């Protein structure tokens, strides 16, 4: 993506966001007579977003020097990025039903395996770390700091 394409996309996203924010602000009730109301500032901020993003869009479209160099998209490892996001999502969804210890063990092991490469992959070491750390953190929070973490199916 060139600098110009990136800035156009950025402005477009904020134009949509500003429009949506303004639309949803219309439904906010006005409670106190002497007050400008709770919809006032959201509408004002939405309008500011629309003005600033429009200005950014116009400036970017008018600017012929902003095309810049195309960044090599292949530099990014999309499997690693999307895999990380997927693992995080699965971890956060499993946290409540499965519990902190089991979900953290599974997440840690999978994430470390995903981030490692052939040369530094040591599954036994990774497994030991993945099991020991969640148990230690659970113990610290549950028994020392007295701030219980999700228990899940194991019930402890």
């Amino acid at each position: 993506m060139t600098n110009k394409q990136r800035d156009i996309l950025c402005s477009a996203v904020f134009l949509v966001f500003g429009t949506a924010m303004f639309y949803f602000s219309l439904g906010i009730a006005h409670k106190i007579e002497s007050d400008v109301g709770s919809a006032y500032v959201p509408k004002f901020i939405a309008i500011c977003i629309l003005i600033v993003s429009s200005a950014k869009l116009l400036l970017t479209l008018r600017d012929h020097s902003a095309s810049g160099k195309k960044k090599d998209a292949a530099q990014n490892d999309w499997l690693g990025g999307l895999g990380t996001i997927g693992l995080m999502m699965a971890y956060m969804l499993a946290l409540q039903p499965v519990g902190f210890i089991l979900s953290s063990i599974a997440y840690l092991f999978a994430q470390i395996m995903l981030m490692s490469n052939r040369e530094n992959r040591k599954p036994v070491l990774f497994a030991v770390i993945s099991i020991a750390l969640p148990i230690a953190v659970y113990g610290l929070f549950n028994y020392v700091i007295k701030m219980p973490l999700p228990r899940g199916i194991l019930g402890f």
Partner: protein
Amino acid sequence: MEMFSVAIGNVFNPACLALIWAGTMLGIIFGSIPGLSATMAVVLFLPMTFSMEPTMGLALLVGLYMGGISGGLISAILLKIPGTPSSISTVFDGGPMADKGQAGRALGVGILASGIGSLIGIVALIFISPLLAKVCLLFSAADYFGVAVFSLTIIASLSGKDMLKGLLAGLLGIALSMVGMAPVDAELRFIFGNYQLMAGFDITVLLIGVFAVTDIIQAGLNRRHLADGFEKKKFHLKGYGLSVKEFITQIPNFLISSVIGIAIGILPGIGGSTGGLMAYTAEKNRSKYPEKFGTGIIDGVIASETANNAVIGGSMVPLLCMGIPGNTVAAIFLGGLTVHGISPGPLIFDKSAQYVYGIYLALIVSTIFMVVFERLGLPIFAKLLDIPKHILLPIIMVMCCVGAFSSNSRVFDVQCVLVFGLIGLVMKVFKMPTTPLIIGFILGPMFEENLRRALQASHGSWSVFVTRPICCAFLIAAVVFCTWTVRNNLKAKKIAETQGQSFDTAEEEG
């Protein structure tokens, strides 16, 4: 005085001293490992302080902040990679010094400079805060509105090369702060039928998402290069590597760099990296031998490290007196203060004096611990640079989830962390600075509440913002600052165009 003796009792007990020591050491570790930062350290440990006595909790955060900023110099010198953004300018001379076989001397001088910068910053904090608090007592709702507008403008302008993107990030932060109950009338906004959103988003959750989760996702995108080794320099050091004569000749450098750091710290939204860079440039311009800067001289290391640590004291001034954080770490502190029922503002010296004095004392103790133990533990901290990132980052992610969960004991916050992490990622793709987002999120409620209260008091008349001299002055300053930044940006762009270069709007964040 009575409050001061209470604070002494609270800080100078074994448990609190141990927490300051642990915080400082952990901060140094987080600061020294590239990819982790002072902000991340304070964010991750903030939830653990919730159950502590206020002074103890704040003392831990103080230690993490102090150690985190200073720790960056270790990798800046040994690996030529700044451990935290604050140490960017330390690389300029610290790196070449290491190349010349003076890595130990650079480290020693850097640690000493960090300590001196911190102490001068703390002295400034102790003297400036009560004076500023007295001035702030005169502020009305309209004046606070003016301060909020000025702060938002300055943040948007200074936190990146592209002011419009900075403004958009700040506005997004304000928009996020509006989710949940509105100030003044408690009307529910933007909750879309989800009762979990009634209380709005927690600042800790936003910070963990934007500063930690985003970085971990980026590491996933960059996983092929995570194991890339960097050549680590060996070091040998006696004392702090600085003779008494050299120390005396560097006194003006210490003082000027500290003043620059304090001033940058007081200005909202800009952090240690800008402070370090400005002090480095100022010292270079002042020097009799500017051509030697960048070749490996102690002057550059001292300027950078003194200034970035002096920022700490400076950033606490507007935080304590007005509730406006000087930078992102101070923003997390604000969360820490409010969790413990301490409301920052001009009355803080009357209502929570013992905690304010506690913070001062913790800062001083942490500085001493940092100077002594960072020096003694150098071999260990250097060794920790070898911890593989593919193991460290997933562990940090688990700690992020623990931190987010403990802020309100609900899994919903953990899920929000991922959402904010993705928002942070999109902002990085768009090359938008993230600091304005955080400061906008904090200043949003202040902006709205004071605007509405001022208009209520003036029966809806907008003239109140012009007739109140303090508010009017801040609004004029905001306009002047905006115009000045736009002019400078256009000038820089013109120069870039005449030189045939494309003007990249990429962020440069502290």
